[in-house]
């Protein structure tokens, strides 16, 4: 259990990781922020997203490399994030924890939740 605590993700962090995975090659800060706003309908800022990504990278859940520059960016490169193996495991742990909790929750069966 002690080990779990180190890996525990915040809700925002979890969403960030998922978005990085979903966006794949397009996973750079601005895109992630836009996608977050679009999907959750919540407003955030580039800075806030960046702070979270930065923290996750420091923990080793994400890695990044510099991508290609575009004219729209005034000729500047973007930083593209990707989920690391450790990140994958942490995401999985988070998912399992949630599922197991949902399974214990009265009135909800596996079927109702739409899982096979």
């Amino acid at each position, binding site marked *: 259990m002690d080990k779990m605590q180190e890996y525990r993700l915040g809700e925002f962090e979890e969403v960030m990781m998922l978005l990085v995975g979903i966006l794949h090659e397009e996973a*750079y800060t*601005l895109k992630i922020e836009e996608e977050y706003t679009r999907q959750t309908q919540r407003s955030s*800022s*580039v800075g*806030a997203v*960046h702070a979270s990504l*930065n923290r996750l990278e420091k923990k080793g859940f994400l890695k990044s490399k510099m991508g290609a520059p575009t004219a*729209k960016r*005034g000729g*500047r490169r973007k930083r593209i994030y990707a989920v690391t193996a450790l990140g994958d495991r942490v995401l999985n742990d988070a998912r399992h924890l949630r599922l197991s909790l949902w399974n214990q929750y009265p009135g909800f069966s596996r079927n109702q939740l739409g899982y096979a």
Partner: protein
Amino acid sequence: MHEEIDNQAQPPAAATRFLRWFLRPDLLEEVEGDLHEKYMDKLEGTTSTKANWQYWYQVLQYLRPFAIRQFHLLPKINPDMFRSHFKVTFRNLWSQKFHSIINILGLGLSLCVVFLILLWVRDEWNVDKFHLNADQLFRVKRTIPLEGQALDVYRGISYPLLKTSVEEIPGVRAYIPIGYSHEDHLQVGEEVLRTKGTFANASYLEGFSFPLLQGDAKQLDDRKDAVAISESLALRFFGNDWRTEAMGSTLHIHDNGDFSIQAIYADFPAGSSLQNDFLYSLQAHLDDNEWLMEWTNNGMQGVVLLQENANPAIVQSTMDALFKEHQEGDLKEGIILQKFHEDYLFGQYDNKARVAGGRIEYVRIFVVAAVFLLIISCINFINLSTARATKRAREVGVRKTIGAGKKSLVSQFLIESFVITVFAVILSVAMTVILFPFAESLTGKDFAISFGDPYLYIAVIGITVITALLAGFYPALVLSNFKPINMLSSKQEKRGGLSLRRGLVVLQFVLSLLLIVSALVVSQQVNHIMNAHLGMQKENLLSIHQDELITNKYDVLKRELESKESVAGVTVAGPTPHQMLASTSGVNWTGKRPDQENVEFSILWTAHDFPEMFEIPMAAGRFYRKDEVGDTTRIVVNEKALEIMGLEGDPIGQTIEWWGDPRQIIGVLQDFYNQSFYEQISPSAFLLDPDNAGSLFVKAKAGQVAACITDVKSVFREVVPEVPLHFTFVDDQIQSQYQSEIVTGKLANLFAIISIFVSCLGLLGLITFVAQQKTKEIGIRKVLGASLPSLVGLLSREFILLVLLAFMVASPISYLVLVQWLDRFANHVQINWLLLFGITGLGAMVITLITIGFQSVKSALANPMESLRTE
């Protein structure tokens, strides 16, 4: 046009600049890219203004710990370098003991004065601000229209106005009469004490924040015989049992009768301008002084407490209108309100009834003096440091060669300045603590200072930092700017900041001279006040409060006293001849102009022998005669009154109307100072009424004051044993009237001495340094046959010129400032400016010569062998 702009649109440059300034450099590219992209996206959908706002928003959102680069406010502190800086600092302080001592001593002395002044200023600033209702307490003042639009402002107001305002003016919660705190004899049982008090109503304790310890303030309103006393008075009368014994006991107030103690209040705090040990029922006072109940009498002072939501301006105009309703005539008096606590510092008005100053002027004078002193000692520091720069130049050169950056050098020198300042602050705090009681006795007030006050610590730390930066910044900059190549190779050392140093020496002496000249003028004015011929005799006069018992036995007392060898004479007069506080506008004469309607005549009630006792000569006619029955309905005036009335022909024998009755003028007394020195002599009338004068005056023969006191005591014990004898000397009374001026005079002298001392310390440091530098030059000159005077001249010429220049700058400035200050006194000393500046200039020159002379003679006398051998 728009299209084009949009195509080439760039995010706001200021935002980008800001971002570049604070963002971690390694993040810059991606962040700028992201934000730029977002900006371009935004532009497509909306206006550029909105896009700009959004860009700014995103930039500000990057103000997060992870994204902000490291800032070095001070050079990055490396513990080892830090230790090394300290080590070098202490080595330098030690090896340059003389300079270090001059620096620390000069700075410490000035800081001590600065701290004491800060304490005093804080104390003055907080007077009367402790009342919980401080913002709703307003002093009611009366304006009197004079000739030609001018207005005079008085604190005396009509009691019915005060009382009615609570009933008729919305927004007024309560009125608080403020009585004159007078010393009186109090008696409980057999015990007699003398202390200060006055009359009051319940609002006095409740409207002001004077907490009750026992009893009920309401009793002051309900019972005519109620009195409230302070805790310390209760303690003095009833000892430690006062809590159980005091309430309900009978307190006899001499002259006022018996009162019952109905309340005990905590002692008024030191920060209160009101200080009373007993408060007796207002009603008792009103009963004894029925004339106070008239609308036209202005013998009351007071404060109104407003509701929290009341608008003071509206209350003021309503009160003004109410007051005017009860007056007749064309030139009606008005009412203005002033916050109660502002009355203390801002109590003076100009002739348009606008606040013109007051005690705040002393606060300002002292703050300026403190700033001057601080600047003077900072200049010492700067001068000594930059002068020594050449000595430190090699050190700087070596450090730079080894690779020290400019920042590291700046921090080295700033640390030195901080260390010196901290030493100076420690010294000055120690001195401040030692001198604190002295400062209290000098200023004649108890400081309401608590050493737990955070303000004190903030002030001390703030001053330390400011001083250290002020003194250390320039030297640090100069020293760290040296080019190592010059420092190490060439022997032709560049003397950095010579002209600046000269400028600073001049500035320093300008400030010192300003302080000295001001001190001389202030003390001359104070002496002038103290010794001025008032137009009457004030020496050897004992003043004794005249109560009923004395009045009843006056004839016996006078006879007995005058039979004594030591007594020159006895008379009565009141209130006091040197400050005639009572006045009236109820005087009419033929030819009185309408704009003279409100001319106030001061009144002195006295006896027939008043002029001889006070040695005031008659200008015309005669004074009252002892047994001339008709004299009580005649009148004597002073010259000023005659001038104002402008009667045609011989005034003696003419009739004027006094309080509705005709009175014949029988004499005119020569003018004497009957008001404070800030004011003109007022038109006055002297009325014959020995029974109600107010004070008994006993004049001792010159040199027999002690004997006279003994005689007065024995006569009183014999004739009026019930009267507790208390007397003061008239010249002491006059002195206490000018307490502020006397304190200012003393402090100004002190500042002047300290400032010239500190300036000379600096000069001493500089000349020592110059002499050291010129050792070799002097040696060579001596070998070539230069005479001693020419060598001394070589060393001191420059400094003498600088002091002369300072003198030329300081004289006109001080002249302008001081003439203005003196103008505030209606009666001021005639200054012989030429003589004053002559003395100051000469004095400054002599002190400068003494300071630098010793060192220059020493250097000039030195054996050239010694100086030339040193290499």
